């Protein structure tokens, strides 16, 4: 969903030329920068950190880095769909918080499997609330999810009265801490989420609809696409992802409500923007969001290792976001 260059075959008689004869020529540099710039930056930072710190390029550190960023990764991947469809989901932090609480509560009072499930389902329901609110009342998704975010977080705080709900049953902790071989479940789920959503965007009918809705809602409607339904679906997916992330982290620490998730929405949007997904909708990719997540993670992790103070890290993150968005807008303008 990017500006693609095609052979100009106007010379001679274009109409008689077979369409199979179309050759691609060099795409523009701005296009390449947007599409692969983030990959270059990630690789460059990776190499630099590997050289700068002996502790960076170790299996433990890298696995740890992935594990710590699985939740934000899952949320950002799903959030990419919301942004492509032309929306924002600021409630993911609150959904994350509330889902963890409910999962823990149900695990304590009913059963562990039901607890894990209920947190994820709740995420989906809250996403549905967001989507319906925004589409039916025709409020901007930015404001709608800002409002629900306050409400959801309020409910969470009321339920816990400020104290996290600990779960004593050790089976509750398996979801967040167990795994296959070296990979913990959260990391596996992050990878699976990214792959599934990216394939859906590339090859799924839903992907086509999401791009069309974000690119030109009116044209999509005139083509028989249920514009509101598609938007709602992206919010449900985002809600499920936030719920899943909340449950995973609650499981990891065997308690619900210990992390309010306030920083999650903005970090997720930062990762999406770093990945070159258009904030105006209609263009973007999940794999680049994954790189955005990794970039932010490496800045924090790697610069900690080489003891750069965290405020410098934030300045760097901010600068990178500006660069990414600028590259993106240059690539789309000319």
């Amino acid at each position, binding site marked *: 969903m990017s500006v693609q260059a095609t052979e100009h075959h*106007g010379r001679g008689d*274009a109409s008689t030329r077979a369409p199979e004869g179309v050759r691609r020529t060099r795409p523009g540099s701005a296009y390449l920068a947007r599409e692969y710039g983030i990959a270059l930056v990630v690789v460059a930072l990776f190499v630099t950190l590997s050289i700068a710190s002996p502790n960076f390029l170790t299996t433990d550190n890298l696995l740890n880095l992935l594990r710590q960023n699985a939740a934000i990764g899952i949320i950002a991947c799903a959030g990419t769909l919301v942004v492509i469809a032309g929306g924002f989901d600021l409630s993911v932090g609150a959904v994350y918080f509330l889902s963890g609480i409910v999962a823990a509560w149900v695990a304590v009072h009913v059963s562990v499997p039901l607890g894990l499930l209920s947190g994820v389902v709740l995420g989906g329901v809250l996403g549905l609330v967001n989507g319906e609110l925004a589409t039916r009342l025709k409020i901007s998704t930015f404001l709608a999810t800002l409002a629900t975010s306050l409400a959801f977080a309020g409910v969470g705080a009321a339920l816990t009265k400020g104290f996290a709900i600990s779960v004593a049953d050790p089976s509750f902790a398996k979801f967040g801490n167990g795994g296959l071989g070296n990979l913990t479940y959260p990391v596996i789920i992050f990878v699976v989420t990214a792959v599934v959503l990216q394939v859906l965007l590339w090859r799924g009918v839903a992907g*086509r609809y999401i791009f069309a809705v974000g690119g030109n809602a009116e044209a999509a409607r005139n083509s028989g696409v249920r514009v509101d339904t598609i938007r709602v679906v992206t919010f449900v997916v985002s809600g499920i992802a936030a719920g899943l992330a909340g449950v995973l982290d609650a499981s990891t620490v065997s308690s619900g409500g210990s992390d309010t998730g306030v920083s999650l929405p903005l970090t997720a949007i930062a990762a999406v923007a770093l990945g070159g997904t258009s904030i105006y909708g*209609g263009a973007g990719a999940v794999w680049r969001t994954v790189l955005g997540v990794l970039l932010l993670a490496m800045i924090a992790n790697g610069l900690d290792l080489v003891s750069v103070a965290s405020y410098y890290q934030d300045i760097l993150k901010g600068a990178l976001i500006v660069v990414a968005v600028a590259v993106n807008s240059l690539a789309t303008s000319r």
Partner: protein
Amino acid sequence: MGTDTARIELREVTKRYAGNVAVEGVSLSLAAGTVHALVGANGAGKSTIGKMIAGAVRADSGEILVNGETLNARSPREALSHGVTLISQELALVPELSVVDNVYLGAEFRRGYVLSTRRARRAFQELVVQSGFDLDPDTKVKDLGIADQQKVEILRAISRRAGVIVMDEPTSSLTADESERLHDVIRQLAANGATIVLVSHFLNEVLMLADTVTVVRNGELVSTGPASAETENTLITAMLGHAASADYAERHPVAAGAPTVLEVKNLRRNEALRDISLHIRAGEILGVAGLVGSGRTELARAIFGVDEVDGGTVTIDGVRLAKKPGPRTAIERGVVMLPENRKLEGLVMGESAAANVTLPYLRGRRGPIASMGWMRTRREQRQVAELLGELSIKPADPSAVVATMSGGNQQKVLFAKCLFRPPRVLLLDEPSRGVDVGARKSIHELINRIARQGTAVLLISSDLEEVLALSHRVLVLHRGSVAGEAPSSASMDEVMELAFGLPNGNRGISLGHTRSRA
């Protein structure tokens, strides 16, 4: 009229997109006080030349001189400061702002930091008088039809009092009488010393107005010379590289027992549609004529279900469309609409041609293009490529992004989107807007062919000649009502009288000129 001073000069100007030539080594000299026409097939590079002159696109190499000074403008604003402005082919207005605010956008009247609405309004009234385009200054642009939007663009350009105005297909969606008003404005501007660069597919408009005509083909300059030395045929040959006729194809008869496919009864929608009834039989092409604002577009939108109606029914093959229909149900019943504004209502500009063409056809569990929610990309690419080739769309590459195509080629993609599957009812709102002579002919042939296969076609066009040549019957609208129906043998004058709401037999208003395109 002209003087010897070159107002604008292009020297070996080249523009490539990602290595592909859009304009190559073009040198041109435009005299002050003249109308200089640019003609060429779709994708020839006309708009790119216009945009480079007006600073909207920057040339890769070469020089552009204004009054002898080098100006390779980096922005439209910079070009404007040198007295150059552009009416772009793809209308570039702010939908949420009013007409008057759009006209003076970026050139507001102000005292210090305070805007003076009164002065803007007064100036606007003067513009309206000068141009003869009567527009309500307070209407939001998004509520205007495309013809009125085009008028806003024109007023904006005139209001800048620029010495050079590039007009990229300014009359593509105006009716004949409105085009005529613009022609008067153009003549008047040129007489006052302005240089007009006119891009148009209407060759007789070009021959009538232009002092000089430049023909471009595949980004290169073919010829440039006085318009008086050219005829439509010489221009067509120069543009296409071979002779071609602009004649209309033979109309096929509707089968005697053909059933009624589309029936519309008493359709009402506030002031726009007042009790409209019509029917179209299988294989029949019903033309719809009328002035801008007569309800032509509103009629198509109401049938398709884009706008909600206050009353009336739409029946397809004897079965009513749902009470509260929408495009989705209409499409399900085999109705497709080609909207008048491709950029706003028709195409997802940032998407590929293939994604646009197949968008309405992805439903159902086991479709040929999509099955169980997944795309069958290879099949899609192949089928779309075939259709693009058939319509001689350039580039005929299904993965080409629509935004990078020329205006005429975008229009053809929109047409391809309607024909990807043979529809039962085809609603066409200005189908050949902005396409060149060859493409226009192939679009006409396709309309004929699709009708012969039993589709009911509703054809709206501000080009009356086109409506009369293609349709079996012509429905004439006047202020939202059916003013009458004309047989295809009717003359343009007869149709125009109905369109103006004149009682039959009252002569005296003529179309002035007919339009033919390249």
